[in-house]
């Protein structure tokens, strides 16, 4: 199983794309989450949300919905929408491996969010493609060992000594 590696360049490109989406969709916050529940990047009023919990619950939600889709013979439900009294959450799958979460209120609308998400998804997919390519080149290049290849037993023990 390969690891998911995110380098600085792509991280900033993802962040830029999310900032643009959040602005154009007039959303409160936008999160990009790995399907396993790890947060990748975010934009907007993120300090108002517990992003770690949000990532884990969203991934659980998407996983459960994927399971439901398969039960009735669908490949996936690519969009989920949760409507609250004031706040709403729009969840969609990007590049098959990531989850895009848009949190918005009455300053925006579902129609606008859907429209902007569509455009942003195309941008995000391109960035993910670049990440995959970079990952393949990195593993192919023997001259660039991962920083973790030099982890010592002492490093690991030190983590648990506190």
């Amino acid at each position, binding site marked *: 199983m390969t*690891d*998911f590696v995110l380098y600085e360049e792509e991280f900033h490109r993802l962040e830029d794309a999310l900032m643009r989406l959040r602005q154009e969709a007039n959303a409160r916050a936008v999160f990009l989450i790995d399907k396993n*529940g*790890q947060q990748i990047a975010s934009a907007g009023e993120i300090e108002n949300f517990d992003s770690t*919990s949000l990532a*884990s619950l969203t991934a659980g939600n998407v996983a459960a919905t994927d399971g439901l889709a398969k039960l009735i013979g669908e490949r996936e439900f690519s969009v989920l929408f949760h409507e609250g009294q004031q706040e709403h959450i729009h969840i969609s799958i990007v590049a098959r491996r990531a989850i895009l979460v848009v949190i918005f209120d009455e300053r925006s609308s579902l129609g606008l969010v859907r429209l902007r998400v569509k455009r942003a998804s195309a941008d995000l997919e391109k960035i993910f493609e670049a990440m995959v390519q970079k990952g393949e080149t990195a593993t192919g290049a023997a001259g660039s060992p991962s920083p*973790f290849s*030099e*982890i010592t037993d002492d490093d690991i023990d030190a*983590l648990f000594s506190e």
Partner: protein
Amino acid sequence: MTFINYASKEINCKIVYYGPGLGGKTTNLQYIYNKTAPEAKGKMISLATEADRTLFFDFLPLDLGTIRGFTTRFHLYTVPGQVFYDASRKLILKGVDGVVFVADSQHERMEANIESIRNLEENLTEHGFDLKTIPYVLQFNKRDLPNVVSVEELYRVLNFKREPTFEAVATTGVGVFDTLKSVAKQILVELRKR
């Protein structure tokens, strides 16, 4: 699948606590949560029924400190142990880096333990993992109860690949952190190999 973020200098790993229903998986996480300094942990989430049985999962994010300049973050999950929640259990294993099997030491739960390990092996395979190679720790929980099977017998029946085993009483914390450390170490050692 470890998530390495070079931009924020973080390593994120996922550990899943597996095992039969009422074996003490949630109690393991609760003990870790209660004994961890506030700055090193996030909120613990429990998706449970009204009777406090795990319905989908428990989740606890932990920061273990830095290693080579990278913040090492572990996401701890439990699965619902009850047999009929298998579809949910399978989902939680997605992207797992290491597994803790919490066995119930009581005589009457031996069959349930065996069945659950078999189920773990099957569900891992469906996600493309192999119990033979994945970081794995076996915990013999509830050692304080009177009707328990001997450790030797538990080891003989439940040990899968000579994985590290720990006796535990999750309610009082005996063996809980030793178990966590053991699986976390194995995950980091795996990371070094790649």
